[in-house]
């Protein structure tokens, strides 16, 4: 880095902020609706379905059965997951006849790239969701790499209903993000989309073509 460049920029900035008032009023807080669990699930579902996400609200014990149906209906032949995650263990133990379709993302991308780029689907956990914006919160980590939710054509996300927040601001505050930001935090609201050609909405341009959310209530 050129230290002179930095010094000159900062000298100009320091001098600039001395000129005149900025007329600042201390920013308030965004208004967050007060919702109960059912309302949060309904609002999240409504907002996410509006952007073509498929949302299934299921009983905690039954999510594997729903997943099996999805694998069958969508003809999924390879499902990437993060071993060692809470859902990873359940998948390994309970997927029955579909177990052979599971692919562990258990090594560095440099050795896994060709596999994930060929996979049909990926399944991830979520840290929560923001109901008023209709988005899932993902914090990928060493057990659950970032590309599972991006590269395969279908992304399946598992969300516990108790982790749905009324809004993004509320999640940031209550989960105390500022104290422990991960390598990459993500909000995901739907399948990849674009409207760059005559504003016509088209899905799956670079990321997943489908986003399926299993809300465990």
């Amino acid at each position, binding site marked *: 880095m050129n230290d002179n*460049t930095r010094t000159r920029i900062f000298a100009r*900035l320091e001098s*600039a902020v001395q000129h005149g008032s900025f007329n600042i009023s201390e920013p308030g807080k965004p208004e967050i609706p007060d919702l109960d669990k059912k309302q949060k699930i309904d609002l999240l579902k409504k907002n996410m379905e509006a952007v073509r996400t498929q949302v299934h609200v299921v009983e905690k014990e039954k999510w594997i059965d729903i997943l099996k149906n999805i694998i069958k209906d969508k003809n999924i032949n390879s499902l990437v997951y993060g071993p060692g995650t809470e859902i990873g263990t359940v998948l390994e133990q309970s997927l029955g006849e579909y177990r052979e379709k599971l692919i562990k993302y258990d090594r560095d991308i440099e050795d896994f790239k060709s596999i994930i780029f060929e996979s049909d689907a990926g399944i991830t956990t979520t840290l929560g969701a923001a109901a008023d914006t209709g988005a899932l919160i993902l914090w990928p980590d060493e057990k659950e*790499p970032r*590309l599972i939710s991006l590269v395969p054509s279908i992304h399946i996300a598992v969300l516990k209903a108790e982790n749905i927040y009324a809004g993004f601001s509320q999640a940031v505050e209550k989960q105390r993000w500022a104290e422990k930001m*991960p390598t990459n935090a993500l909000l995901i*609201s739907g399948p990849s989309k674009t409207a*760059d050609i*005559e504003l016509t909405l088209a899905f799956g341009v670079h990321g997943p073509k489908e986003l399926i959310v299993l809300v465990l209530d």
Partner: protein
Amino acid sequence: MENKKFNFKENTAQALLDSRLRKNLKFAMGAMIQKRRAVFSNAQELEKLRVLGNSIRRRALSKLPELLEKLENKCTENGIIVHWAETTNQACEIVLEIMQKHKADKLVKGKSMVSEEMHLNKFLEQHGIEAIETDLGEFIIQLAGETPSHIIVPAIHKNKDEISKLFHEKIPGTPYTEEVEELNAIARKTLRKMFYEGHVGLSGVNMAAAETGTLCLVENEGNGRMCTTVPPVHIAVMGLEKVVEKLEDIPPLIRLLTGSATGQLITTYVNMITSPRKAGEKDGPKEIHLVILDNGRSKILADPQLRQTLQCIRCGTCLNHCPVYTRIGGHAYGFVYPGPIGKILTPQMEGLEKAGAMTTASSLCNACEEVCPVKIPIPELIRRLRNESYDLNGTVQGHGYKKHFMETAAWKAWELVNRIPALNAASTKMAGLFGHMLPKAGPLKEWTHTRTKPVFAQKSLHETVKEQGVAHE
């Protein structure tokens, strides 16, 4: 485009003759306005959010040196390498150096207006490096050899037929199709290969939180995530005004940004990057560089009125609502940032003598100010820059470039006529008697090209009222 002398008048005339462009823009801008209106249906709620957005941005600007230093420290602590660039050329050199260090000859790029400001693709090309635009809109215009015409929807000036032809001609082995889904599939296939092979990915930064050293990126396609996750090296470029103080400032700003830009509650992806790949993590870049660009911004900050320009969050909604932009499109403006925000940003960056003509393209109808999510008084700043164009004692680079003898003399005469009652009476009389004889020459000829020549009354209003009184009080 900046290499040629900027002739706004000619550009505008050309654009207005292009009926297909006008049709494309009329449809697109109408649709964008509707979508924004739908997402911000509660006017009171929107107003509160705008006030909040305005305070967040003002507070950040008031502490800019402190916040940038904090951002730099936090990023460095998190393992991100921070670079500073005073000029666009310096910023390009930094990117080139990183590419060369990694012996990389291909760059996969997410959408970034700052990289457009840097003319990065052209610079890299001159050094044997290919920059591949991966945002669909940017990909389209790169194939066409053009520049973006809109901040958010770069290929908005093109319709489906034009894009179909372009894909067919420029992407080897591509059959002609007008199906949007198929065109997307073609782009997906072509660009997936690039993501797979890319060694270095580049992105912009929508906002950066100083508190945690987090770079925030919003997008719908997933190409931004691809560029910042698949290649082993990620370079982020940002203008130095993009920093905010706290992480909690990000959610309301994103709400304002996505709602204003595309009428969405939120984009498909909000990508918040705080560090390169940590030990044990299996993907993500091993190296992240952040290039922070000044390019005149620190000078803009020094002016208490004009610094409001830097509050901009680049949502592009002022373009969508501008009656001038909607008729001439982005290319006519001749510089990277078009529309109302371009009119106030570009002349300050490039100098009034080069880009000041942009400020004339406004009827000061206030539409841009009414929709601006962070309440930038754009018309007020346009007026300021127009005044600076004639002011030899101004402060903006290139001030006073329009001042010339005839103009000064005309206004001096105007002042005298309005200050001295006898002169006023005489000139009113003269206008009534000889006004019809004014030849259509010089400025009057130009003015009457699209307007009817005014006819002066034989008697002044004062005289008429004196004689007849006021009939309808």
